[in-house]
């Protein structure tokens, strides 16, 4: 139950967008082992037969991420993700009918408390009264809970890698089972997404607050990234942290979570990826049997916000006790845009591997950086995203010099300094990365489900590489000149507070 931190998400997206192409015959070979179908209610399956070992990996990919959240409810995609491990009407309860009524009352009480708390002039006494009432009902709701029965049952049957993630673009749930227990996955997975239960909702929010403290509040890089995206975007919800703003997490209720579920967890918004030692016909039979009766519902609403053009450079400095970080991001494109592949390759030319431009100059030659990175598709890639560069300066290096060097390297690309050999090299590596990623059931199940869920075709995992092949040196130069301009950029950094200043304060 993890919320992928923005950095992690960025790196994963980096991998996926660089996953890549294989020759046509490889795709044909691969295609022989893939079965795809869509149920009448709109739920899609992509199944890869790969009988290396008697195990199967399952991924349920929902085309909803934190970018889809309503105003005032940031973090709700991730909260729902946590709730999906709490069981269902069938599992995790001693008496579902009574329990569901108590949960309803608990939510009413919490909303009463919220209403009082958010008044301009809350009455302390009433507030306390309402909180006690809420706690009283919450305690009663706990009497029906069979602690972690859902996850425990799965793990007892030998599951491996039981977890989930939420990113700006998507939510995915996954685990692997011995191949003879596929039906267990079908019955439990269908169950939890057909009739979710908001069991232990408010205790789980405490856990999510702890997650936020670990990943963001108490982590220098977490703080920097949260600040960075919130400044870089002015309208698009990519500005919000995946885990949510603290007051939104507090204000989210069970009613909100169920509305979110009704809206986005409809079959046409769900893609299931399965990879391993499977009999595709049997999988199809189970799919119809267990997921066939999920009501079709209305198509999930689309996100139509467009980030307006930026009018000038944005810049901020966090002064604190931790060591320095430097970040510079430019508004780029969404991943289906014709320029997306050129920006991906440009990121690799700048910072992937020991031959890349930033590594050669900043890490090896000038020794100004411990590390430097550049990639496109941040904080998500489905909508217009940022091309992000970052540097971890070595000790005593001036931030002004770091920035000047980075800008010089970008300027060189704009002037057409990139050589054909560099472009060829990053393409070769992209192809090899794709091949290397084909050796894991769980990785494959996720890649295929994502490609099918996001791009309506699992083949894009491979055909994306054809597009990389079409990128020319002229394209690299052009995209650098188009997007990497001053008024389109955000600069943010952590600067280490000097001890003296602390003493003076």
């Amino acid at each position, binding site marked *: 139950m993890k919320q992928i931190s923005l950095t992690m998400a960025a790196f994963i997206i980096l991998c996926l967008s660089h996953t890549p192409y294989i020759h046509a015959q490889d795709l044909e070979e691969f295609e022989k082992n893939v079965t795809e179908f869509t149920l009448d209610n709109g739920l899609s399956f992509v199944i890869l037969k790969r009988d290396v070992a008697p195990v199967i990996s399952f991924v349920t990919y929902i085309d909803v991420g934190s970018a889809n959240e309503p105003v005032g409810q940031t973090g709700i995609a991730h909260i729902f993700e946590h709730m999906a491990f709490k069981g269902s009407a069938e599992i995790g309860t001693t008496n579902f009918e009574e329990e569901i009524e108590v949960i309803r009352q608990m939510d009413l009480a919490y909303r009463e408390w919220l209403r009082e708390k958010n008044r301009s002039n809350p009455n302390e006494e009433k507030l306390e009264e309402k909180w006690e009432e809420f706690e009283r009902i919450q305690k009663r709701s706990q009497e029906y809970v069979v602690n972690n029965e859902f996850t425990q049952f799965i793990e007892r049957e030998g599951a491996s890698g039981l977890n989930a993630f939420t990113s700006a673009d998507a939510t995915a749930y996954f685990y692997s089972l*011995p191949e003879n227990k596929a039906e267990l996955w079908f019955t439990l997975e269908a169950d939890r997404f057909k009739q979710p239960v908001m069991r232990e909702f408010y205790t789980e929010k405490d856990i999510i607050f702890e997650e936020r403290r670990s990943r963001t509040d108490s982590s220098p890089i977490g703080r920097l990234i949260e600040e960075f995206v919130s400044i870089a975007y002015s309208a698009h919800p990519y500005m919000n942290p995946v885990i949510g703003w603290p007051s939104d997490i507090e204000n989210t209720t069970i009613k909100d979570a169920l509305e979110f579920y009704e809206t986005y967890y409809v079959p046409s918004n769900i893609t299931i990826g399965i990879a391993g030692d499977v009999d595709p016909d049997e999988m199809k039979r189970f799919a119809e049997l267990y997921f066939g009766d999920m009501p079709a519902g209305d198509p999930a609403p689309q996100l139509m916000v467009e980030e307006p053009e930026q009018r000038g450079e944005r810049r901020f400095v966090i002064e604190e006790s931790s060591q320095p970080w430097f970040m510079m991001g430019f508004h780029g494109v969404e991943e289906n845009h014709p320029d997306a592949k050129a920006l991906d390759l440009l990121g690799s030319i700048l910072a992937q591997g020991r031959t890349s431009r930033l590594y050669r100059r900043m890490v090896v030659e000038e020794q100004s950086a411990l590390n430097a990175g550049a990639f496109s598709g941040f904080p998500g890639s489905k909508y217009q995203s940022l091309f992000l560069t970052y540097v971890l300066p070595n000790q005593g290096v001036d931030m002004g010099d770091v920035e000047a060097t980075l800008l010089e390297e970008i300027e060189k690309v704009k002037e057409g300094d990139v050589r054909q050999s560099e472009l060829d090299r990053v393409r070769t590596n992209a192809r090899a990365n794709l091949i290397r990623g084909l050796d894991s059931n769980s990785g494959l199940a996720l890649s295929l489900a994502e490609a099918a869920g996001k791009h309506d075709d699992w083949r894009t995992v491979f055909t994306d590489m054809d597009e990389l092949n079409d990128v020319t040196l002229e394209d690299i130069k052009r995209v650098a000149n188009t997007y990497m301009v001053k008024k389109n950029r955000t600069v943010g950094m952590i600067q280490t507070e000097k001890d003296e200043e602390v003493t003076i304060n």
Partner: protein
Amino acid sequence: MKRTLSISLIWLIAGFSLLEAQTRYDELTYPELNEFQVPDIETFELDNGIKFYLVEDNELPLINMNVIVRAGSFMISNEKVGLASMTTQVMRNGGTKKYPEEELNELLENRAARMEFGMGLSSGSGSMNVLKEDFNDLLPVFIDLLKNPAFPEDKIDLAKTRTRSGISRRNDNAQSVASREFSQLIYGEESLYGRLIEYETLSNITRDDMIEFHEQAFTGSNLMIGITGDFSAPQMKDALQEAFSDYPKGTRNELDLPEVDYEFNSSINFIDKPDVNQSVVFMGHIGGLRDNPDYAALQAMNEILSGGSFSGRLMQTVRSEMGLAYSVFGSYQSNVQYKGQFYAGISTRSSATGEAINAVRDQIIRLQEEKVGEQELEEAKERILNSLVFRYDSKSSVLRERMSYEYNGLPADAFEKYIEQLQDVTVDDIYRAANEYIQPGNMRVLVVGNASEIGDQLDEFGDVNEIDITIPRAQREEE
């Protein structure tokens, strides 16, 4: 695939559309599990002592070579902490006379090839991952890196600059501060198992030291090499025999790591980090060795305390019921080469620090005060036994396990033995092991957190010892 065939056949006969009902999760019956074909591992040894392990796997057009090096930072004195890992860093980033750094990187990255080296406390590693068509061209490059690193001065300086930069950043993340400082609390600052690279030890390291350590570590009698991928074993064997024939033999290193010097006592230790709103807590004492008749009972105890992703007591109680943490963990470590740690810990909001320490400690005490439930033990065993199928989920996993067992001097059937013993573990065994190996009253507790938010919550645990982690460390004992 016989099973699935016959099932399809039955369905064909029965008629597909006959009514079929959904089955509840607890009413399912399962067919027999397909078998994993454990691949044969071809092994051979050269006169120079290198031992090879080969497994063909033609699923993808790749060849991976993984080297285990019989050496480690345990061979390095306290004045030169950091030498071992610096040596492997410069082996790769300094290149050789024939393949200097810049050319080497272009050569490798033009073919999307990867070569890396590393050195841990009690073993080293090397790896070469290439597309199969590049194997013959790149094998000599890899061998040259293993055998003839140039250790150029400018790349040594670069490695030192980066390592210094890393040292300066080591206090930024509270979780890594906590696990690092807890190791020091258990093993001691000057101990092989707790010591840190400091600016001073780094500046003591010379090029000659690297050359000497490389010569001790990367010789034939200290290398085990595993190769998996798309090749034919007989041809590969010939190619390797030829390529490694003149590799120097050297002397075999003994993995005799010193015993841990430990005295049980309790303490409460604190590190102030004003920029956090969450306390990271570790508590525990010294752990044990893998070679122990109670190993299986202790593993079962670990599984009950914190097993699975969500199934252990700590997750159930401290996380799910009390909502005190996203992350909570605990385990009695049984290491092969030297004693592990017994530790448990949690990350929790500053205001709940005291409550969280008690909540975790209560779960440890509970293991000693009452026997675990029969059903609880049964479920813990099932989790382990039913997931055994994931032990081998690829051909390379078989090879990795074999090499690791041999490296550590474990018998080939050590795992099977453990599983047999695990099946026989009783609630009494766990009760006895918990009382024999764990001392809840004698734990060292470490809290990394925000002093102004935590207030006096730690006072109930004794006289708080504040640890200064300023870099470089304040006056340490002279050797």
